[in-house]
C-alpha cells in the first residue's frame, strides 16, 4: 500500500515535471535524448544479433543486456570514482557549450570555439612554464591569462565581422587553423617541448588546478574545474537575463536592424559578444590543460582529436541545451555521463564509440525535433479547432430545428 502511494507520487511528480510551460522548451531536447538512446540500444542489438548469427566472427562475443546496463548506468558504474570522472570531463564541455550557446543567443555562430580553446590552453601552458609564482597565484594567473588571450582571439573574429563584414563562420574556421600553428610556433620556439615525446613539458604543481581533499574532490583526476564551470553558468545566466549588457546583446542577436533603429551600437555589440564567447572557450581550454598528465601533443591530428574536439562538442552541448546557460550545464553533464557509459562498454565487448553514436543521433534529432515538435503541436491545435467547429455547427443546426418545430 505504502509502495503504491509512493509510486503514484513519483508518477505525479514526473507528470508535473513535464506539465508547466516553462519546461516546455526542454521537451524537444528530452525527446531527442530518448531517440538517441533507443537508437544506440538498437544498434547494439543489431551488432549482437549479427555476432550471434555468425555474420562476423569475433573472439569476444558482445553481451547485449550487460552492455545496455553498463551504457545506461553511465557515471554510476564504479560509484564515486566514475562520478568524479564524469564531473571532471563535464567541466570543459559545459564551458565550451556556454561559449557556443552564448554566441547563438546573440545571433552569432562561434564555430571558432576550438581555436579559442587552443589559445586558452596555450596561454595557460606558457604562463605555467615561463612564470614562477607561488601556488594559488600561479594557477589563477594562468587561468586568467588563458581567458583573456582567447577573449582577444574571439574579439578578432567579431571585429572582422562587425567592421569588415567577414562572415564569422569563415573567419572562425581560418582562426582555428591559425591557432594550431600559432601554438606550435610558440611552444617550439620557446623550448616548452619534451623532445622525446613531442609533447609540451609537464606544468609545475603550482600551475595546476587545485585538487580537493574532501568528498568527490579527493578522487583521481578531479579538480575544481566543475565548480568554475558552474560559476560560469551562473554568471552567464545573470548577464543574459538580468543586465543591460545581456539585453543589448540579445536584442542585436534577435534583430540587428531593430537594435540599430533603437540606437544600439550593433558593431560594438557583435565584438563584445564574440569576445565573451571567446573568453568562455578560453576558460575551457585552460581548465582542460591545467591538469597533471595533460599535454599538447604537437601534431595537427592530435590537437584536433584531443583539444579542439572539445570545442566541436561545445556546439552539440549548445544545441542540446537550447543555447541557455542552464541548458549547457545539463547538456554537458549528460554528454559526460553517456561517455562514461561508453567507457565502460569495453567490459561488455562493445566499443566505447557507441556513446558517440548516441550523441550524434541526439544532435541530429535535436536539430530536427524542434521542427517535429512544432508540427505535432500545430496538428493538435488544428484538430481541436476543427472539433469545436463541428460542435458549434451541430448546436446551430439543433437550434434551427427547434425553431421549426
Amino acid at each position, binding site marked *: 500500500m505504502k509502495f503504491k502511494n509512493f509510486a503514484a507520487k513519483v508518477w505525479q511528480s514526473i507528470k508535473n515535471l513535464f506539465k508547466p510551460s516553462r519546461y516546455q522548451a526542454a521537451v524537444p531536447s528530452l525527446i531527442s535524448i530518448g531517440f538517441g538512446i533507443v537508437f544506440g540500444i538498437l544498434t547494439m542489438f543489431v551488432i549482437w544479433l549479427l555476432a550471434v548469427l555468425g555474420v562476423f566472427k569475433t573472439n569476444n562475443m558482445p553481451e547485449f543486456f550487460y552492455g545496455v546496463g553498463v551504457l545506461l548506468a553511465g557515471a554510476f558504474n564504479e560509484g564515486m570514482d566514475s562520478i568524479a570522472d564524469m564531473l571532471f570531463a563535464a567541466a570543459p564541455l559545459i564551458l565550451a557549450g556556454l561559449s557556443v550557446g552564448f554566441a547563438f543567443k546573440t545571433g552569432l555562430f562561434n564555430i571558432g570555439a576550438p581555436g579559442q580553446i587552443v589559445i586558452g590552453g596555450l596561454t595557460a601552458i606558457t604562463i605555467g612554464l615561463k612564470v614562477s609564482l607561488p601556488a594559488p597565484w600561479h594557477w589563477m594567473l594562468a587561468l586568467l591569462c588563458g581567458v583573456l588571450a582567447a577573449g582577444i582571439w574571439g574579439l578578432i573574429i567579431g571585429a572582422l565581422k562587425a567592421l569588415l563584414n567577414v562572415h564569422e563562420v569563415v573567419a572562425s574556421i581560418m582562426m582555428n587553423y591559425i591557432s594550431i600553428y600559432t601554438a606550435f610556433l610558440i611552444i617550439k620556439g620557446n623550448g616548452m617541448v619534451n623532445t622525446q615525446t613531442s609533447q609540451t613539458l609537464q606544468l609545475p604543481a603550482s600551475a595546476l588546478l587545485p585538487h580537493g581533499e574532501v568528498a568527490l574532490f579527493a578522487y583521481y583526476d578531479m579538480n575544481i574545474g566543475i565548480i568554475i564551470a558552474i560559476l560560469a553558468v551562473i554568471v552567464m545566466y545573470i548577464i543574459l537575463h*538580468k*543586465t*543591460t*549588457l545581456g*539585453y*543589448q546583446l*540579445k*536584442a542585436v542577436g*534577435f*534583430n540587428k*536592424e*531593430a*537594435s*540599430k*533603429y*533603437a*540606437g*544600439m*551600437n550593433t558593431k560594438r555589440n557583435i565584438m563584445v559578444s564574440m569576445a565573451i564567447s571567446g573568453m568562455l572557450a578560453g576558460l575551457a581550454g585552460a581548465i582542460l590543460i591545467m591538469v597533471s598528465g595533460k599535454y599538447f601533443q604537437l601534431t595537427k591530428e592530435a590537437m584536433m582529436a584531443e583539444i579542439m574536439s572539445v570545442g566541436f562538442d561545445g556546439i552539440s552541448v549548445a544545441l542540446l541545451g537550447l543555447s541557455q546557460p542552464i541548458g549547457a550545464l545539463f547538456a554537458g553533464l549528460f554528454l559526460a555521463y553517456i561517455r562514461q557509459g561508453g567507457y565502460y562498454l569495453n567490459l561488455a565487448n562493445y566499443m566505447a564509440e557507441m556513446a558517440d553514436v548516441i550523441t550524434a543521433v541526439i544532435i541530429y534529432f535535436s536539430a530536427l525535433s524542434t521542427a517535429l515538435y512544432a508540427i505535432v503541436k*500545430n496538428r493538435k*491545435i*488544428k484538430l481541436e*479547432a*476543427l472539433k469545436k*467547429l463541428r460542435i458549434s*455547427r451541430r448546436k446551430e443546426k439543433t437550434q434551427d430545428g427547434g425553431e421549426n418545430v
Partner: protein
Amino acid sequence: MDYIIEMLNISKIFGTLRANDDITFQLKKGEVHALVGENGAGKSTLMSILFGLYQPDAGEIRYKGEVVKIHNPNDANRLKIGMVHQHFKLVDVFTVTENIILGMEETKNGFLTLENSRNRILELREQYKLFVDPDAYIKDITVGMQQRVEILKMLYRDADILIFDEPTAVLTPQEIDELMHTIKNFKKEGKSIVIITHKLAEVMAVADRCTVLRKGKGIGTVEVKDVTVDTLAEMMVGRKVSFEIDKKPANIKDEIFRAENISVFNNEKNKHEVHDVSFQVKSGEIVGIAGIEGNGQTELVNVITGLKNMTSGKLFFHQKEITKNSIRQKLELGIGHIPEDRHKHGLVLDFNLAENLILQSYYLPKFQKRGFLKKNEIYQYANQLISRFDIRSGAGSASITRSMSGGNQQKAIIAREISRNPELMIAVQPTRGLDIGAIEYIHNKIIEERDNGKGVLLISLELDEILNLSDRILVMFEGEIVAELDPKKTSFQEIGLYMSGSKKGVIAHEV
C-alpha cells in the same frame, strides 16, 4: 443558374485561426464581383483556395455546376482561372515576353522560340489596350506596367475568370482609372472578374455584386446598385464608421526640424535615390509626404533617423545641426520614429512586450542600476503603457510580441514612441495592414501629437491618409520633391499627376 464558380461552405483553419469559416461565394458569368473585408477577414485565403494554393478543410468548389478539386495552380489554369497577386510574381531580369510565357515556353529542338509568343502578346496588347513593351526588362518598367504584364500573363493563358488581389494598392489615381477601364473591357468580352479590395470607392465604381467578409465569416452578398458606401462599410466593420477625421485647425508655430539639400546616391544602381530634398517641419503641423512606393521616401526617412548615411545635405533640429549625430543622440534629442516595417525595425519579435517597450530607453537610470535591469520598474512601466494605449495581448506585458496581432504590435510601437515624448514624430505608413478600428485610433493619436505642439512627418502610400491628416503635402517622385500642396486646395487627381511625374510644380522654399 449561370454561376461559373461556386464555393460552398468553405472552411480553412490555420493553427487556432479560422481564416475561412463556412463561407459561400458564387460568381456569375460575365460579372464583376468585389470581395471586400478588412485585413485578416479571409479574402486572400478564400481566393488562394480557388487558385489552388490552399486546400479547404471543409466545403466544395463547383465549376459550371460540377464539383471540382483544385489541387494546385495548374488545375486552376486548366479551369481558366487566372490571378494577379498583390505582390507581383515576376522575374526582374527577364523581359516582359519571357515573363509572360514562363511555364509554357515554346521550344524548337530544345531552343526557345519567342517569335510566336511575342506576336500573340502584341495581339492581346492591341485587343485590350494594355500597353507595355514586350522587350523591356521588368526591372526597368513602372509598377503599373508590371501589373499589366501580370494581366497579360493571365490572358495569354486564356483565363476566363480573372482574380485581382488588391490591384490598386500600388497604383496612382490615374493608373487606377485605367485599370477600372480595363476591367470594364474584360466584362464586355464576357469574362468573369473578382476584385479583392478594402477600398469601397472602387467597389462602387466597377463592381456589379459584392460579397463582404468579416473575421473569416461571410456577412452577405449584395447588388452594388442597391447599397451605399456606408452600408458596405458597416457590413465590413460591424458597426457605423465615420470616414471624417475630426481635426481642429492647425496651430503652427516655430520650426522644429529642417532638412537642407539631402541627397543619397546609390552606387549599385548608379542613380540618386534622394536628390536635393529640402523641407521643414514646424511645431503643431503634420507634413505629409505622398508618393508611389520606391520613390525615395524610405531612404529619406532612413537618412533623417540615421539608419542610412547621406551623400550630401544637412539636418537641423531646433536650428542646431544634427547631420553627424548618432541614432541614439537623435533619439535623445527628441525624434520619434514609427518605422515602415514593424517587423524589421520596430520590434524585436522574440522579446516580450515589456522588453520591446524599453528598446530605446533601457539604459536610462529609470530602468537600470549599475548595469542591472530593474525588472519591477520595467514591467510597471509596460503595464502603464498597456492600459494607457489599450494594447491587447495574450499574456499582458510578458507576451512575446511575435504572437501579437499586427494592430497591437503597431499600437505597442506607437505607445513606445509617443511615451518618449518626442518633439518630432516621423510616422512611416503607420496604418499599413491594420483594420479600420486600429486605423482610426492611430490617426487620432497622430492628430493628438500635432495638437500638443509636436511636429509630425507623415509618410504614406495611402493618399486618403495623406489628404485627411496632413496640413501640408509634399509629393516625391524619383527621389525629388516635385510639389508642395495645400490639402484643402488639391485633389486626388492633382496629387496623382505629381506622383507619376507627369506634372512638376514650383516649390516655394520658405527656408
